[in-house]
């Protein structure tokens, strides 16, 4: 469950909203940053904390695509395939990622190192094609650059 330090953050967060239920999204973020994903137990924990029905927490977690209901690999690679990226060759980037990681979109590699997702527009159309790993954006990619990037991740 949330660490002492994170619980303090939650207390701070609550003050930002007139109703503490509104802190749900940020608290889920804290939980995911701590655990990498949001388990059923975590949903109960947060529901109790914010006085929300557990089902409400589940409904929110499953609505937003960035909350993980299952653990992800060490690196979660998100490749944009929307129009601007598509026009500039995101297919090839996706291929390169699939090839290097041994996982297709929606999958995690057998060694647990890579999770691959095909995602919608990330707001980096000027740097298309692109992918994101965690909060870091990698733009203006080529298959070669992609290979080298993945190679550098240990």
């Amino acid at each position, binding site marked *: 469950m949330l660490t002492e330090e994170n619980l303090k953050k939650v207390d701070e967060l609550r003050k*930002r*909203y*007139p*109703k503490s*239920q*509104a*802190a*749900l*999204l*940020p608290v*889920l*973020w804290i939980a995911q940053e701590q655990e990498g994903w949001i388990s059923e137990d975590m949903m109960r924990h947060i529901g109790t904390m*914010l006085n*929300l029905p557990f089902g409400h927490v589940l*409904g*929110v977690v499953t*609505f*937003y*695509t*960035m*909350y993980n209901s299952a653990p992800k690999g060490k690196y979660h690679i998100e490749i944009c*395939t*929307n*129009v*601007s990226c*598509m*026009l*500039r060759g995101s297919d090839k980037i996706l291929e390169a990622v699939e090839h290097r990681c041994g996982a297709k979109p929606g999958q995690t590699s057998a060694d647990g190192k890579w999770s691959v997702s095909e*995602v*919608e*527009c*990330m*707001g*980096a*159309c*000027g*740097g*298309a094609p692109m992918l*994101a790993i*965690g*909060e*870091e*954006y990698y733009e203006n990619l080529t298959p070669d650059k992609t290979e080298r990037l993945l190679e550098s991740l240990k």
Partner: protein
Amino acid sequence: MERYILPEIPDYHKLEVYEQHGGYAALKKALGMKPEEVTDEVKKSNLRGRGGACFPTGLKWTFMPKQTTKPKYLCVNGDESEPGTFKDRQIFEFNPHLLIEGTAIACCAMGITTAYIYIRGEYGKWIKMLQKALDDAYVKGYVGENILGSGFSTNIYLHKGAGAYICGEESALMNSIEGQRGYPRVRPPFPAQNGVWGCPTTINNVETISNVPLIINRGWEWYSKIGSPKHPGPILVGVSGHVNKPGVYEVATGELLTDLIYRYAGGIPGDTKIKALIPGGSSTMILRGDALEGVRMDAESLKAAGSSVGTAGMIVMDENTDLIRVITRIAKFYYHESCGQCTPCREGTGWLWKILKRFETGDGQTSDIDLLMDIANNIEGNTICALGDAAAWPVQSMIRRFRDEFEKRVSKTPNGSPEPSDRNRHAEKTATVSL
């Protein structure tokens, strides 16, 4: 044109640099004005929203009740998720204080004591940048209690989204701030009466709010003379797709689309022709490449050309582009992002995509073209929010302006693919469903 939103000044994101160049002077000025004078200034400037609907910002502010016992809220929309749109990110990174200053001024004008800046979850890195700037602004007393000794207080908080395009829709955004699923709300009631937590709320786009300090600083007369008179001001135009120098360009409204493509974005790779252009993000109606002459980046001109400004996110497609693939990808996006609340959008977006997928693989039927049009027409205008329209417009315009592209992808076999793997798809066509 001189750049106001994204000036070419090194380290402008740093508070001291921003201050050196006159930063927060507009806030000081606004704090010395009556709130309605601030609103009036914005109203006269003719600033129109940069989030897609081009609604007059000052007028929107006047909808907020002056006498109310409830707290009032400002939500600044930085959800920026429309394909082709990547302008607000530049503000977070290169001019965060302009946004913070504009937010504080807006609060001052409307008597708001709490503002939330809603930013899409994917922008984690940029949220941290903006948070740093916000922390600095708090320390300097530009935000928080008793701002610059004026007696006026307002808090600004960042609220991080979590992967839902629909939360860029203002009422879904409010639900998301409340900790709910991002379902758009049925209107009326409108946010100015009944917004977050049932309180009067105004929602403005990040870029819109970033224009406010300029107006206060240099006056509405100056501002209203920039660019197109009916839709004035600087505007951030994103250019992506088949151009040599994709990126965000700050121009005055009314810039020729061709200038944006050729002068700013460096033209088309290989000097090929433009086949098609999406002028303002994926929901705006697609234009033919041979119909761009004289069309300008402003609400009136693009309306006349049969499209709209949207978020000014231009997607350029050269003559070798497979437009069926483009429209299929766009349809997939709206299908994926439909919240699922109301019937026409929930069911219609998926249907559009599934038919388009068949065209993509050369398995469309001539009758499917009209069916696509029909479905799009049946979604348009019948949904709770504008996502339905956003899903319908690209399909409608693509069929209207590029019908031949669809016809080329009609199956060569008269009744479609004969493989059994296609199940009874075609056999069912004439079967009646009796209930």
